[in-house]
C-alpha cells in the first residue's frame, strides 16, 4: 500500500507552489521530504490530506483515489498528519488530547454521550494506558495533565507526534516534527519513528530542515525546490548530489 502522487499541481494566483510532482512513498518506509523555505512541502501535505486539494493530478493511497476527499475521510483511511505550527487543542490537557485522538467515531455519538452506551468505557481505559506508555517513550510523562497552551513549543511538537500515533495511522505525515524540540528528545523521536517502521511497518513521510535527523532515519529522500522535484534517492546519494548542495547553500539555517 503506497502513497502515490501523479503530476500533482497546486497554484496560488501566479505562484506555482507545487509543480507537477510525481512520486511514490511506500506505506512501510520512512520517506523524507526536504527543500528550502517556500519550496512547497507543506502545500503538498495540504494537497494529500484534503485540506487544500490540488488543481490537477491525482493522489492515491493503496487502491483508493484520495484527492478531493474531505480531510476527515483521508484521516479515516489512515493518513494522519501533523501541523508545522503546533497549536493543538489549546484548552485540552496532553492526556485529553491523546484520548481524543484515540477515540473512534462510534464512541463519539450523542447516544454514547448521554451514557446510554457501554462501549466507550473499555475503549477509554485501553487508550489511557497507551497514552501513558507513549508519553513515557517520548520523555513527557510528567506533562500528561498539563494544558496544551501551557506547553513549550518543543513539547507541543512532541504532542503533535504522539497525538497522531494515538489515532492508529497506517502512515504518518509529519511536518517538521523536530523543529524546536530539545536535542535529547530529537534522539527519542528518531528512535521511535525508526522502531515503528521496522517493528510495526508504520511508515512516515517527514518534512524537516534538520538534515542530520532526517538522513539518519530516512530510507528515501525527495528534494523539492520551487515546487518541483529536484532529486530523489537514498540519503547517501542525496547527500552527495551537487544540485542539492547548491539549493541548500546559504539557505540552510546555521
Amino acid at each position, binding site marked *: 500500500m503506497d502513497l502515490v502522487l501523479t503530476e500533482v499541481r497546486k497554484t496560488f494566483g501566479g505562484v506555482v507552489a507545487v509543480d507537477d510532482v510525481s512520486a511514490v512513498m511506500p506505506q512501510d518506509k520512512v520517506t523524507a521530504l526536504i527543500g528550502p523555505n517556500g519550496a512547497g512541502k507543506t502545500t503538498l501535505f495540504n494537497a494529500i490530506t484534503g485540506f487544500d486539494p490540488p488543481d490537477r493530478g491525482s493522489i492515491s493511497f493503496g487502491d483508493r483515489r484520495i484527492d478531493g476527499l474531505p480531510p476527515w475521510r483521508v484521516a479515516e483511511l489512515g493518513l494522519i498528519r501533523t501541523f508545522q505550527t503546533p497549536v493543538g487543542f489549546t484548552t485540552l490537557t496532553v492526556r*485529553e488530547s491523546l484520548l481524543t485522538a484515540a477515540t473512534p467515531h462510534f464512541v463519539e455519538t450523542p447516544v454514547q454521550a448521554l451514557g446510554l452506551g457501554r462501549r466507550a468505557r473499555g475503549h477509554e481505559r485501553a487508550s489511557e494506558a497507551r497514552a501513558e506508555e507513549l508519553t513515557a517513550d517520548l520523555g513527557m510523562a510528567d506533562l500528561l495533565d498539563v494544558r496544551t497552551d501551557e506547553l513549550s513549543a518543543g513539547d507541543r511538537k512532541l504532542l503533535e507526534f504522539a497525538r497522531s500515533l494515538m489515532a492508529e495511522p497506517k502512515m504518518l505525515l509529519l511536518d517538521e516534527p523536530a523543529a524546536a524540540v530539545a536535542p535529547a528528545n530529537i534522539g527519542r523521536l528518531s528512535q521511535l519513528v525508526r522502531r515503528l517502521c521496522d517493528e510495526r511497518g508504520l511508515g512516515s513521510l517527514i518534512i524537516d530542515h534538520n538534515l542530520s535527523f532526517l538522513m539518519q532515519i530516512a530510507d528515501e529522500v525527495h528534494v523539492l525546490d520551487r515546487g518541483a522535484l529536484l532529486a530523489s534517492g537514498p540519503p547517501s546519494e542525496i547527500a552527495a548530489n551537487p544540485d542539492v548542495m547548491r539549493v541548500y547553500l546559504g539557505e540552510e539555517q546555521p
Partner: protein
Amino acid sequence: MTNPIFWVGVLTLAAIYASLAMALNVESGWGGMWDLGIAGLLAAGSYCYVILTADPDLGMRFAPGLSMWVAWPLSALFTGLVAFAIGAPALRLRREYFLITTLAFAEIIRQLVVIQADFTRGTLGIPNINRPFDSFVTGRDYNYVLLVIAALAAAVMYLVTRQIGSSPFGRTLRAARDNEAVALALGKRVNRMRIQTFVLAGILIGATAPVYLFYIRAISPQLFAPGITFTVWTALVIGGLGSIRGGLAGAFVLIVFTEAVGLIEVDPAHINILVAIEPMLVGLLLVLVLRFRPDGLFSERDSFGSRRTQAERASGRAATASSRPTAAAQASD
C-alpha cells in the same frame, strides 16, 4: 422583607433560566457555536406544547388535546427538529454569520407564530395553561409545587449536561472548538457532530419550555423577544462559559440580583427611572464578575482535565516517583 412566595417565584424563574443556560452551554461553551436563537427554540417548544395540550373549546384549528405527559417529550423532539432545520444551513457559516443567522431565525419563528393565528391565536395569546398537579394543590401553595418541578428540571439538566460534557463526545466537541483543523486531521466528523450537538441543545431547550409555561401561565408571541436569549447568555457568561456548573450558578446570581433590584423602594414618581437603570445594574454586575473572575464564577479549566493535577497536589507531595501511579489510579476510577 417581602413575602416568601415572592422568593419562591424568583427561585423558580432562576431554576428555569439555569436549565436554559446549561443547555446553551452544551452548544456554545463546548461546541463553540454561539447561538443567539434561544428565544426562537423556546418559542417552538412552548407553542408545540400549548397546541398539543390546548382546550379544543379555544377554537384553534389543530387541538388534539393530548395529555401533558405525552405533549412534553413531543415538544422536546419537535424543538430538536426545528433546531435541525436552523442548524443545517446556519452551521455552514462562520461564527459571526452563524450568530446573526440564529438571531434572524428566532425572529422568523416569532413572526410565524403571529401570522399563523389559526393555529396559535397569534397576538391574542392563550391564557390559563394547564399545569401538572393543578387539581391537587391550589392557590398560593401551587408556587411550591412549581418550584419543585423547576428545581427537578434543573437538576436533571445538570446531570445530563455534565454527562455530555465529560463524555468522549463532549471532549471531541471541545477539541474541535479549539482547533478544527487538528480535529479534521484526526478523522473527526466535525460538521456532523456540531449538527448533532445543535439538535441536542434544541431538544434540551424544548424540554425546558413546558416548565417555563407552567411558570408564566399564559403564552403570547411577545414573550419570545430576543431579551430571553440575552438573559440566558448573561447568566452563562457570569457563571462561566464552558464550565459544568456555570449556567446553574450564573442564572441564580443573575435572576436573584435582577429581582432584588426590582424590590428597591422608590417614590412611585421615579419608578420609571429604576426600570431604566436596571439593565445598567445588570451590566455592572457582569463587568464586576468578569473583572475579578474573567472565566466566570466557575471556569472550564476547573471542570475538566486539570482536576487531576489539583487532586494530586492536594494529596500531598509524596515521593515524585509515586505521582505516576496516583495519576493512573485516579484515571481509572
